[in-house]
């Protein structure tokens, strides 16, 4: 039997495959397709304190091997989530992680305050990196100080582990990562979507009403692998890799580079069975290569001599 379990320090996952926020609904939508108990974890759609209307359409545009979205975090808010969704979701034996959003630092803290009273949540993922809310993609994760401020505030009130989700739209992601770690983050997840634009050449207008959207999907994977590489060598806390994972091979690349787990996003939209297929693929890979414990391949990238 291959052991796919992963220890993140603060929680143990059945396997390193977590469904990523915003691409997996509130989780239950996938129950007709897959056995949710098989997943390492589920990050539910981003939650603000109150329900949010979201952006005007069009909200999606396809790019080469990618998807640009400008959904703008439309969602139900904490109250409805706790009353109607969580009671069903916590019946599953998988790590339930809530993606926490806020317009101000205080809103992040109040979401966490509210949810702390509820059972059945394993951790929070602080979404300080959504490019689709503020004008021009501004978010706390663009700056080490704003990152520090929101993470330390949330850590003060949270009784649960806090994963901080970083933005790729920065010059030096390791600097932000260190700042989050210093503020008390229990883990980092990287990354959220890349700020992107699509143009309609007939009308010469941007395809998306607010000009910018966020790019996800296979197109971003090489860039995110590079970022994970740059961060794992600098921080002590676990790193979760997110970007363009469609197959077990894609997930393995992240693990070998040093991510302790991965999140699968856009792939869920295309194939609702994607997460489970990737888990099966990991087992197959381990069996084929005589690996008993998947943890043993984490961070085993054979770097050329002379490089550290």
């Amino acid at each position, binding site marked *: 039997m291959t052991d796919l379990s992963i220890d993140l320090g603060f929680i143990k996952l059945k396997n390193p495959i977590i469904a990523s926020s915003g691409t997996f609904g509130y989780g239950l939508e996938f129950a007709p397709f897959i056995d949710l108990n098989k997943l390492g974890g589920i990050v539910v759609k981003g939650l603000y304190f109150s329900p949010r209307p979201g952006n*005007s359409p069009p909200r999606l545009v396809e790019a080469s091997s990618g*998807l640009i979205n400008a959904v703008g975090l439309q969602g139900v808010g904490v109250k409805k989530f706790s009353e109607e969704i969580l009671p069903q979701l916590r019946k599953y034996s998988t790590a339930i992680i809530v993606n926490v959003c806020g317009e101000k630092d205080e809103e992040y803290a109040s979401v966490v305050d509210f949810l702390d009273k509820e059972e059945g949540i394993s951790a929070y993922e602080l979404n300080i990196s959504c490019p689709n809310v503020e004008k021009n993609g501004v978010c706390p994760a663009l700056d080490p100080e704003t990152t520090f401020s929101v993470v330390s505030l949330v850590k003060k009130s949270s009784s649960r582990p806090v994963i901080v989700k970083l933005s790729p739209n920065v010059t030096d992601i390791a600097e932000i990562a260190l700042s989050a770690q210093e503020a008390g983050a229990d883990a980092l997840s990287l990354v959220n979507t890349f700020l992107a634009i699509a143009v309609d050449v007939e009308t010469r207008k941007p395809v998306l009403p607010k000009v910018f959207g966020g790019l996800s999907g296979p197109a971003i994977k090489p860039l995110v692998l590079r970022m994970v590489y740059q961060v794992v060598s600098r921080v002590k806390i676990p790193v979760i890799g997110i970007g363009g994972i469609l197959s077990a091979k894609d997930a393995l690349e992240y693990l070998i580079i040093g991510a302790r787990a991965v999140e699968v996003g856009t792939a869920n939209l295309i194939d609702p069975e994607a997460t489970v297929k990737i888990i099966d693929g990991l087992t197959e890979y381990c069996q084929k290569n005589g690996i008993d414990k998947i943890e043993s391949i984490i961070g085993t990238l054979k770097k050329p001599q002379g490089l550290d």
Partner: protein
Amino acid sequence: MIKDSQARIIDKKSWNNYYLFSLESPRIASQAHPGQFIMIRISHHPHPLLRRPLSIHSKDEKSIDIFFQVSGLGTDLLSQKKVGDILDILGPLGKGFHGGASLNGKDVVAAGGGRGIAPLYFLAKELRSHGALVKIFYGGKSLEDIPLKEKFKRENFDLYCSTDDGSFGFKGFITEYLKTELEKFTPSRIFSCGPEEMMKKIAQFAAKKNIPAEFSLESVMGCGFGVCWGCVKRIKKNGEEGWVKICEEGPVFSSEEIVWTEEEK
């Protein structure tokens, strides 16, 4: 909702840019209602990435048909598939048109423009089986854009065709043709699918004449089953207005529910 990764193409017809495929998928066929759609995986490679939504054009015991116009890369690649090829599809998705026994013996109109005719064939057959008297209004830019006219005729539907350039039938938009004909009779309901401008006009004069109407809306879809929140339109329900996922709550909505907006760009 079923994921069928083994839907075989058992028949293929084409007219210039328009294609009709029959897909063997007994489980999806047994659940399908007019106005529902399927999501088709175009490629198992990462490009084109997303599935494409196509309406269910008709069904048999074991199969469903799709009718589509080549509109870009995805539909172009789909059009190149051959009889015998296997498609990965999700369906039936969304909520369909409302019809049924209440329309028995009543006049109803199904008005479609271009590829928008796709779901109306299934609808028209279903309505007729409930005893409704269906008049089909079918418009296109030119003669080659109304390739299904023979099919409707063979089935003895009351057919009203228009072309923008006058190459066949009424010269002008299908909306103008319908407006003229509505001077002569008042249907109990209008069903429509096509370009948004067309549907908006129909909604306006249906409202003026107090004719209930239903429209099948289109939007770029990321998933088709309610998880990405990418496909929203402005909808009013129970007095509340908001962005509603059309893949889940639609794609069919009634006149009163739709808040026609200019896409803000």
